[in-house]
C-alpha cells in the first residue's frame, strides 16, 4: 500500500542545535497521525520538511511517493498546511481569504464547498469581516477552511489547538474526525498529551527524537511497571515523604494525586505504613492504569539515560536525584 508519508533518517541541525535527530516514520493514507511533544521537540521543523519548505541535512522524505526535495511542486499541490501562527491575510475579509487561496490553487470556493461546509458554516455569517477581527476560535476555523479549499490529500496542522479553550479544542477534533470520510490524511502536532487519544496513531517526540510510535491505546499499555496513585490532603508533605523512600523509583505529581512506581515492582503493602509513620494519615493508595503522559515520562527517563549526560534539569522524578526540592 502506498504510504502518505515515508521518512527515514531525517536529521536537521541549526547551528549547535540538533532539531531533528534521525527521524524515521511512516503515515498511512486516511490516517490521523499525531506528533505529541513539548515546545522545542522538533515538531515544527519536521512539518516544514514534510511540507517542502525546508530541506533536511540528511535522510529521505517522501509524500505520496514523491520526494520532498525534487518533486516539491507536485507535493505542494497536494497538501494543505496550517502553520502554528495565524498566517492568513488579516486585512482581507473571511471570504476574500478563501477566494484568494482557492485562486492560488486554481479552484473555486464553490467547487469544494461540500468539503469545507461543515467548518465554514460556523463563520459564513461573518464572511465580510476582516480576518484580523475574528476571535481565536473563528480564526482557527478560517485557517482550516483555507487549508482545505483545494481538497488536499494531506492536511498538515501545526499545533492547531494551542491557546484555544477546551470547548473549541474538542470541537476542532470533532471536525478532523469528520474529514476522514473524504480520505484525507491528517498529521497534527500538539503539546497536549490528552489529545493523543483523538489520533489513530501517535509519535511521541522529544529533543528531536521519536520516543515511540503506536496507537494511543498501545502506548499506554506499553508502560512497563505497576503504577499506583497516592492521594493525601497534604500534597507537598506527601511528595517529600515519597522522595525519601528507598523503595520508590519514581513519584510524579499528576493532578490531585502522585503517580508512583516502586523499585522492582515491590508490593505496595508497606507504603501506607511508611506514610503513616511520616505523619501522613489520610493517604489513599490505589493501583492505576497508565496514561499517555505516564508512558511519555518513562520514555523520557530512558532517553535521558541513553544520552548518558545529565540533560540538566531533567529527571527529578527519580528518587536518587531528588535532593533539590526545597525544605
Amino acid at each position, binding site marked *: 500500500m502506498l504510504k502518505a508519508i515515508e521518512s527515514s533518517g531525517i536529521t536537521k541541525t541549526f547551528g549547535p542545535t540538533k532539531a531533528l535527530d534521525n527521524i524515521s516514520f511512516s503515515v498511512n493514507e486516511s490516517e490521523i497521525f499525531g506528533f505529541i511533544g513539548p515546545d522545542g521537540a522538533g515538531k515544527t521543523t519536521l512539518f516544514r520538511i514534510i511540507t517542502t519548505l525546508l530541506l533536511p541535512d540528511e535522510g529521505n522524505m517522501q509524500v505520496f511517493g514523491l520526494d520532498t526535495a525534487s518533486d516539491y511542486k507536485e507535493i505542494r499541490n497536494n497538501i494543505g498546511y496550517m502553520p502554528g501562527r495565524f498566517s492568513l491575510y488579516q486585512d482581507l475579509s473571511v471570504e476574500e481569504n478563501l477566494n484568494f487561496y482557492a485562486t492560488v490553487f486554481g479552484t473555486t470556493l464553490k467547487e469544494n464547498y461540500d468539503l469545507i461546509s461543515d467548518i465554514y458554516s460556523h463563520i459564513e455569517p461573518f464572511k465580510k469581516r476582516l480576518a484580523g477581527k475574528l476571535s481565536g476560535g473563528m480564526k482557527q476555523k478560517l485557517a482550516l477552511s483555507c487549508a482545505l479549499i483545494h481538497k488536499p490529500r494531506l492536511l498538515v496542522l501545526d499545533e492547531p489547538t494551542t491557546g484555544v479553550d477546551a470547548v473549541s479544542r474538542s470541537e476542532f477534533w470533532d471536525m478532523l474526525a469528520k474529514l476522514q470520510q473524504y480520505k484525507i490524511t491528517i498529521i497534527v502536532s500538539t503539546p497536549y498529551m490528552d489529545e493523543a487519544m483523538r489520533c489513530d496513531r501517535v509519535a511521541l517526540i*522529544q529533543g528531536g527524537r521519536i520516543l515511540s510510535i503506536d496507537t494511543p491505546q498501545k502506548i499506554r499499555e506499553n508502560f512497563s511497571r505497576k503504577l499506583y496513585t497516592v492521594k493525601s490532603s497534604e500534597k507537598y508533605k506527601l511528595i517529600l515523604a515519597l522522595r525519601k523512600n528507598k523503595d520508590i523509583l519514581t513519584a510524579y505529581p499528576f493532578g490531585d494525586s502522585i503517580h508512583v512506581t516502586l523499585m522492582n515492582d515491590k508490593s505496595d503493602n508497606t507504603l501506607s505504613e511508611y506514610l503513616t509513620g511520616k505523619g501522613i494519615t489520610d493517604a489513599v493508595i490505589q493501583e492505576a492504569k497508565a496514561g499517555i503522559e505516564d508512558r511519555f515520562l518513562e520514555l523520557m527517563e530512558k532517553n535521558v539515560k541513553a544520552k548518558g549526560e545529565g540533560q540538566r534539569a531533567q529527571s527529578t522524578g527519580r528518587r536518587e536525584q531528588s535532593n533539590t526540592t526545597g525544605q
Partner: protein
Amino acid sequence: MNEKVIYVKNLVKKFGGFTANDNLSFEVYAGEIFGFLGANGAGKTTAIRILSGLSKPTSGEVNVAGFDAYRQTEQIKKNIGYMCQKFSLYEDLTVKENIVLYGGIYGMSKSLIKQRVAELMSKLKFQEYENRMISDLPLGLRQKLAFSVAVLHEPKIVFLDEPTGGVDPITRRQFWETIYETSSRGITVFVTTHYMDEAEYCDRISIMNEGKIVALDTPERLKKQYNASSVDEVFIKIARPN
C-alpha cells in the same frame, strides 16, 4: 489556611453596555492553589486585571491581600506577583540583570536584592547561568526563573497564566512541585489556564461562563457532581450543556 487573601463580593464590571463580570463572589485563602478557568471571552482577564489593581470594579466589594481594589491599587500591586509563561523575562538581559531589574521594580533594597540573587543562584543551581542571556536558557530553567522572580518580593498572592503550557512532562512536574512548595509557605497561587489538566493540580477551581462563575469547588467534587472523569469533561459539560 483560613486567612482570606482574596475577597470578592458581587463584583460587577461593565464596559459601556457590556457586562464583562456579572456579580462574581468568591474567596481565596492563604496558601491555596486556586484555578480560575473559563472559555475565551468568559471574563477571566477582566477579573484578573481588577484583582491585580490594574482596573477598577464598576460595583461590588473586592479586597486583595488586605487592600481595597477601588482605593488601594498601588498597595495591591506591591503585594502580588505575576508570571506568564512566554513573556515574563527580558530575553536580552542576563539572568542576574532580570532579577535586579524586578527587585528594583518591586522597590526592594539593594542589599536585599543582592541577597536574593545569591539565594536564587544556589537554590536553582543557576551559578553557571548568572551572566547568560535569558534567550540562551532552556525553557524549563527560564520558567523556573520566571516563577522565582514573580515571588522575589514574597508577595501574598502570585498570579500564573498558563504556567506549564507547552513544556515537557518532567519539567512540568518539577514546576508543580515548586508551586506546592510555594503554597506550603503560605503564598497563594492563582492559576489561569486553558490547559484543563493543569486545573487538576489546583486545590479548588472556579469556572466562568459569559461573565458569571458557574462552578466553584475542588476538582474532585466537581468531577463527581458532573459525573465526569476529568476537569476537561466538566468544563465541556458546563460550557456546552447539550
